């Protein structure tokens, strides 16, 4: 894969001030920070689906929000084709935001409850002046058909839809702007499996038809495996491994990826583990361990892991941030 990436993320970092108690403030203690993203590198190829997985709080949503400029990153660079995304302003930013659309886990909270679906879509079309007024009605019907909603849906408000249908409305609104890239943050996580499959199929079909690039943020590993061409695994604000999907699931390289896959429940009752895949709790994001963030739970940790943060290294087509792979005589775990 030597093609120039559609999106290229270099050294992206973002910290949030931690909530501080009154006592701590009175004592004048320094305000601590949650490092939600720490020196994240990632590239996205045109037309691919890149899965992003990792445990709660590892920074997946923060990454997504920084990429669409809903949040300002502290450091780093994001290239989208020739655009310097983090420095875009005014009309250029609006144009970028049209091309890169985010869809949220709960479209209910991002859909205006007082507007009908038709009004919402019309607003999106008008704001970005995508269609002359006369053509808007036709385009709205086209969008509804595209996401598998009946024409009558245009006259209904969000609360009149089921969860799966609301996801379709959210997708229709994103597509109204004719984006080239969709960032789906836990798009189907709240849906029942039988309905989840309907929305997943819609996404697959649209991607095929419109050539969309998709960043698919989710914690359902089975789903990510099914949809993604490549997968990035995050842990405490860092990307620890990026690899082509089948390689990642067949032969995970980073010890955290190995633990995550082993902990995910398989559908085979005959393959049942006796002991947990990994012990220990996720460290507090306020107290990220020195060196490798995973070292407090890693069965392979050694002295260097506490002293030095591992940098992403190319290992057989994957990027892995682990000293086992950078140490000259490091034993590679199976």
């Amino acid at each position, binding site marked *: 894969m030597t093609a120039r990436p559609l999106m290229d993320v270099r050294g992206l970092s973002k910290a949030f001030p931690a909530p501080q108690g009154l006592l701590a403030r009175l004592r004048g203690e320094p305000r601590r920070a949650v490092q939600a993203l720490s020196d994240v590198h990632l590239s996205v190829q045109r037309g691919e689906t890149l899965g992003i997985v990792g445990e709660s709080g590892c920074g997946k949503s923060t990454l997504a929000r920084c990429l669409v400029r809903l949040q300002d990153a502290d450091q780093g660079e994001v290239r989208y084709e020739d655009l310097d995304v983090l420095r875009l302003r005014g009309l250029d930013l609006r144009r970028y935001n049209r091309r890169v659309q985010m869809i949220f886990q709960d479209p209910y909270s991002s859909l205006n409850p007082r507007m009908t679906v038709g009004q919402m879509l019309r607003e999106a079309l008008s704001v970005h002046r995508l269609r002359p007024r006369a053509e808007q009605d036709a385009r709205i019907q086209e969008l509804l058909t595209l996401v598998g909603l009946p024409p009558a849906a245009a006259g209904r408000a969000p609360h009149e839809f089921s969860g799966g249908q609301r996801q379709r409305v959210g997708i229709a609104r994103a597509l109204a702007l004719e984006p080239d890239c969709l960032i789906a943050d836990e798009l189907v996580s709240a849906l*029942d499996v*039988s*309905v989840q*499959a309907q929305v997943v199929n819609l996404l697959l079909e649209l991607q095929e038809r419109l050539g969309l690039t998709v960043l698919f943020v989710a914690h359902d590993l*089975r789903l990510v495996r099914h949809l993604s061409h490549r997968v990035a695994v995050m842990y405490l604000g860092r990307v620890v491994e990026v690899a082509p999907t089948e390689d990642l699931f067949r032969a995970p390289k980073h010890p955290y990826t190995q633990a995550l896959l082993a902990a995910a429940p*398989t*559908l085979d*009752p005959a393959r049942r583990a006796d002991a947990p895949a*990994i012990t220990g709790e996720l460290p*507090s994001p306020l107290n990220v361990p020195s060196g490798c963030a995973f070292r407090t739970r890693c069965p392979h940790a050694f002295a260097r892991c506490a002293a030095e943060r591992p940098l992403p290294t190319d290992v057989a087509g994957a990027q892995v941030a682990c000293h086992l792979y950078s140490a000259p005589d490091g034993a590679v775990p199976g």
Partner: protein
Amino acid sequence: MSAPPALLQVRDLNVRMPTPAGTLHVVRGVTFGVQPGEMLGLVGESGSGKSVTLRALMGLYRRPVTVSGTVEFAGQDLLRASEAQWQATRGAQIGMIFQEPMSALNPVLTVGTQIMENLRTHRGLRGRAAAERAAELLDLTGIPSPRARLNDYPHQFSGGMRQRAMIAIALASEPRLLLADEPTTALDVTIQDQILRLLLRLREELNMSVILVTHDLGVIAQTCDRVAVMYGGRLMETAPVGALFREPRHAYSLGLLRSLPGSGARRAPLQPIPGGPPNLLALPPGCAFSPRCAYASGACLGAEPPLVPVAPDRASACVHAAALPSLTGEVSA
């Protein structure tokens, strides 16, 4: 079926809830049993009645909600028991844990106090003996330095530790049956894995029965002995867990398993169940699943099909149970 007497035998359980739009018949004629030491999974889509079933077993409903049927626990019919008898059973012999531990834990009492309160009420332990036992229980659930953590408040615990603390509180009374409502749904997979292994170990060590409610078929496959599939307030199928995943005998179970990703080639379309969950106020005639079912025929639209035995230790409420294909090799991890 030479099964030993069940610890819990539920027969024809019905729960009705009045709402402004009409009375919701939320649990409709549910019948199942749980053996001593057995882990039974209760699975179904959102709104199918899983939580209401558990809450009814726990005796948590009062008028205007009505609960009917029989709930026989260790030979005693709980629905006909006096309030005092019921109180003695609940908490003492039946424990319950929830999805969100913060809603069940008291934020102003230390974790130790909450465990000791249960030890006093149900086991008559006080003072030093209670403190010793409380530390033992925290230790049992895998909380490091349990003695010191007894003095912590719930907010000082992480999500996974709170879930462990809630399990420790529920176990204080040494229940014979533990009702667990989505105990790991809010947790990360690595922590979920730890809690599920813990439940398996505890049921082994304490010979406790568990009803585990979840919507995650993977969790069922990894922990349960038997599974009951719920849809629209009714049990659609009960089966040993291996048999269900190999050879579902209800078209809804089959549809559920087939809709999971992983059964076809990567990026191939999934096989969704068309439509959405049933409206309890306007159920279709006959089988509640019929509007979404690919196998539906005229035979499905008469009286609602009852849950009947279809094989040893298996029951199904599907008219076409015998005609359904098996899934061997189709559903994979």
